């Protein structure tokens, strides 16, 4: 028997006043009941975070809200209602790294709210905190109480956040993108934890996210927001099986699925264009003069071949070394040891002018579209730069070359004189792509090129990359943490963990029948945008994994022994 805990009707938020007011949210309505997980889905700018803030009374000073939010018999949006923070409704944010006060111990941050709200005295609060830490799966809870946030990992800090809010025994918990900043295996654990808590305590959970896979896994009901308006609302099955609104359909279409059958034919082994052997790279904690800090082995004897015309994906969680590998190939980071053969040159041995000339053969597309373009350089100049450096076009041709490139990536030639800040994230990424192909490279390294973009834009960019690859016969090294995206774009995949490649093979083979336990855990953890596939508890990621030499277990499929 479930009761309605929160009833929101006609919630609207405007920023600023009078004529120049912008509307952030318009007429949003929903209910949350005991034991229910409601998901608010939207891309950036949809207003989903604002909804949470409005309910909690945490809106910025210039924002005004109107409407009704009935909770425990009171309208939360009315002028003089005390916000239900903590003991009524709890809130968890996205960035666990910055969400805890760095100068106070975990223990004091956990207990202070309990004491302030009068739920218990300090000793009882201390005991409850330890119990709750245990409940949320933190080992050594007694020790943790005396530690500081910086001594915990991101996943642990998020658990602490959950513990902190649950200690106040709220009726509802709002989780605003709680796992977006976490690795996929950690994300799975946190989501399991949340589901567990809801089941145990029968609180209502409002899960705000942009990830349709997470929605499918967790939610029972869904609201889809676009530009501040509710575009569609319904049960999770209904949204996924039979979406009504066009936006919802487009959103679902754009989401890559890890299970999608690979449509491209398996490419037969062609020529090897790049051959990396025995790459090592260790980072020290300290730079410059002074005793060295803790060392991190980013690349541990990595060897890899890249075939002509393929898209090879590098997959791994943070600290796997995948980005370092990309950077080493580009000579942005210098490897400690090893060779990289491109054509018949050792890339790592080149210096000076020859290195600069050879650089044009490998180009990179970076993750952050906001920082990968020089803010003081016009877009046209940025795209032209590789051409000017390599001297591959005469002065009179330059204008045409830029126009052609801009058009090719889906922009217009008039944009050449504008500056990066005038463009959106997706557009900037297109510009970055234009710059990357300008010098006619053989290999393109894409380092998480779509991670910072909305899912609908992501689909466009991935399509663009696929087209360009085919047209210009490009080879691509695609670095990503998103297993579904990799499934969609890659021919072969290499899974990395702690600086070593632990599995390598055709993406279909590896994804549908992974051999290495880590790969299995990764695939297991990735949320699938299909609500009918409810999952049970996952096998926890424990202990160490085999990271020995790679042995071929099937044609072209290698696994670390």
């Amino acid at each position, binding site marked *: 028997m479930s009761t309605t805990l929160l009833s929101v009707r006609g919630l609207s938020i405007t920023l600023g006043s009078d004529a120049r007011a912008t509307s952030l949210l318009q007429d949003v309505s929903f209910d949350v009941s005991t034991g229910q997980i409601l998901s608010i889905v939207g891309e950036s700018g949809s207003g989903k975070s604002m909804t949470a803030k409005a309910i*909690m009374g945490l809106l910025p000073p210039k924002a005004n809200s109107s409407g009704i939010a009935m909770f425990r018999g009171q309208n939360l949006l009315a002028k003089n209602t005390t916000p239900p923070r*903590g003991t009524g409704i709890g809130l968890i*944010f996205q960035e666990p790294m910055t*969400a805890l*006060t*760095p100068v106070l111990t975990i223990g004091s941050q956990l207990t202070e709210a309990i004491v*302030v709200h009068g739920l218990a005295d300090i000793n009882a609060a201390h005991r409850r905190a330890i119990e709750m830490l245990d409940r949320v799966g933190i080992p050594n809870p007694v020790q943790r109480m005396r530690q500081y946030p910086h001594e915990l990992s991101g996943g642990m800090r998020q658990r602490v956040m959950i513990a902190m809010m649950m200690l106040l025994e709220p009726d509802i918990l709002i989780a605003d993108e709680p796992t977006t900043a976490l690795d996929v295996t950690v994300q799975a654990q946190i989501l399991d934890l949340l589901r567990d808590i809801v089941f145990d305590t029968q609180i209502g959970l409002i899960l705000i996210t942009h990830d349709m896979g997470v929605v499918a896994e967790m939610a029972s009901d869904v609201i889809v927001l676009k530009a501040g308006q509710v575009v569609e609302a319904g049960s999770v099955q209904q949204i996924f099986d039979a979406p009504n609104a066009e936006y919802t359909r487009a959103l679902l279409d754009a989401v890559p699925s890890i299970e999608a059958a690979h449509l491209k034919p398996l490419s037969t082994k062609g020529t090897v264009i790049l051959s990396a052997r025995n790459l090592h790279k260790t980072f020290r904690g300290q730079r410059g003069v*002074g005793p060295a800090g803790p060392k991190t082995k980013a690349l541990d004897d990595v060897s890899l071949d890249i075939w002509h015309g393929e898209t090879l994906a590098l997959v791994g969680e943070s600290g796997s070394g995948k980005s370092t590998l990309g950077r080493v190939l580009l000579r942005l980071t210098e490897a400690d040891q090893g060779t990289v053969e491109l054509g018949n040159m050792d890339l790592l041995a080149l210096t000076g002018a020859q290195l600069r000339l050879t650089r044009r053969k490998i180009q990179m597309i970076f993750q952050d579209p906001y920082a990968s373009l020089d803010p003081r350089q016009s877009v046209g100049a940025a795209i032209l730069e590789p051409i000017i450096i390599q001297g591959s076009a005469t002065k009179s041709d330059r204008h045409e070359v830029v126009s052609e490139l801009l058009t090719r990536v889906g922009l217009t030639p008039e944009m050449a004189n504008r500056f990066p800040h005038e463009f959106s994230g997706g557009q900037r990424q297109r510009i970055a792509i234009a710059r990357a192909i300008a010098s006619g490279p053989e290999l393109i390294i894409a380092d998480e090129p779509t991670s910072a973009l909305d899912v609908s834009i992501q689909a466009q960019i991935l399509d663009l990359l696929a087209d360009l690859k085919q047209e210009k016969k490009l080879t691509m090294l695609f670095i990503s943490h998103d297993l579904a995206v990799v499934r969609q774009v890659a021919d072969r995949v290499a899974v990395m963990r702690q600086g070593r490649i632990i599995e390598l093979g055709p993406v279909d083979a590896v994804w549908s029948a992974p051999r290495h336990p880590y790969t299995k855990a990764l695939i297991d953890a990735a949320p699938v945008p299909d609500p009918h596939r409810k999952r049970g508890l996952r096998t926890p990621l424990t202990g160490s994994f085999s990271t020995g030499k790679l042995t071929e277990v099937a044609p072209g499929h290698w696994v670390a022994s």
Partner: protein
Amino acid sequence: MWHFLSTRLVMGFLTIWVTTIMVTLLIHAVPGDPVQIMYAQSQGTTPEQIEQVRRSLGLDRPIHIQYLMYMERLFQGDLGVTIRGGQPVLEVIFQRLPNTLMLAVTAMFIAILIGVPIGFLAAYREGTVIDIALMVLAIAGISMPHFWLGLMLLFFFALELGWLPVSGNSIMNLILPALTLGLSNAAIFARLTRSSMIDVMSQDFIQTAYAKGLPKALVLRRHVMRAGLLPVVTMMGLQFAFMMGGAIVVENIFSWNGVGRMAVEAIFQRDYPIIQGFILTFSVVVVVVAIAIDALYAVLDPRIRRA
């Protein structure tokens, strides 16, 4: 934490060592013959006496020998003698150093006690009239030359109103110079504190604190203040160095018998041994205080204490 502190200690030693080198080289940078210049003003020094001084200073030897001589004497506590009167430089400095330190420390207290609360208040009331008014005051404070402020204070309080003595060495005499130094630096502390607090208040963890339902006063006191004061502590070392520099001028205005006043006189008299001694002392004091404050910071910031 020890890594942090040991780096600082090493740098401190290095700084003092470089100071000794620079101090030895100082004499050579003087255009012309330094010994001649030194004794130009005192009459009746024979060429033999000048030669004697030259030899005792080691100026007739190669530079590295001079340096070693200087260091040797340094470790014995001998910083040379003044040109006038031949007193040991070390003695002269030690007589006056406590006065300067008293001035600088008192000024520091004044600056912090006035500046930090003002900065805090301005941050708390960010954007309101109070904030704007306080910050205008702060900017005016920074822009005012401290020697002018000193003169004005001297004029009003000592001469016009006769509340405080003009010169001398009692505690009453400390008030005006300390106030002069302290007020100018209070403005800097105010602005610094304000920006640090505002920065902290926009951080995620403050949102978390509010989301827990903590009352505003508690959030400010426990979360904002503690996190926001850390950068202010960092700046204290720098500010102390500035104050030592400012003390030089202030001592002059109020005839306060500290090393600053001694140094300026020495410059006019071309009394190089004192100038050298002063530079060295100044350096050592600044370095020691800086390390002490760094140590304090290392203890206060858990991210460094438990790295």
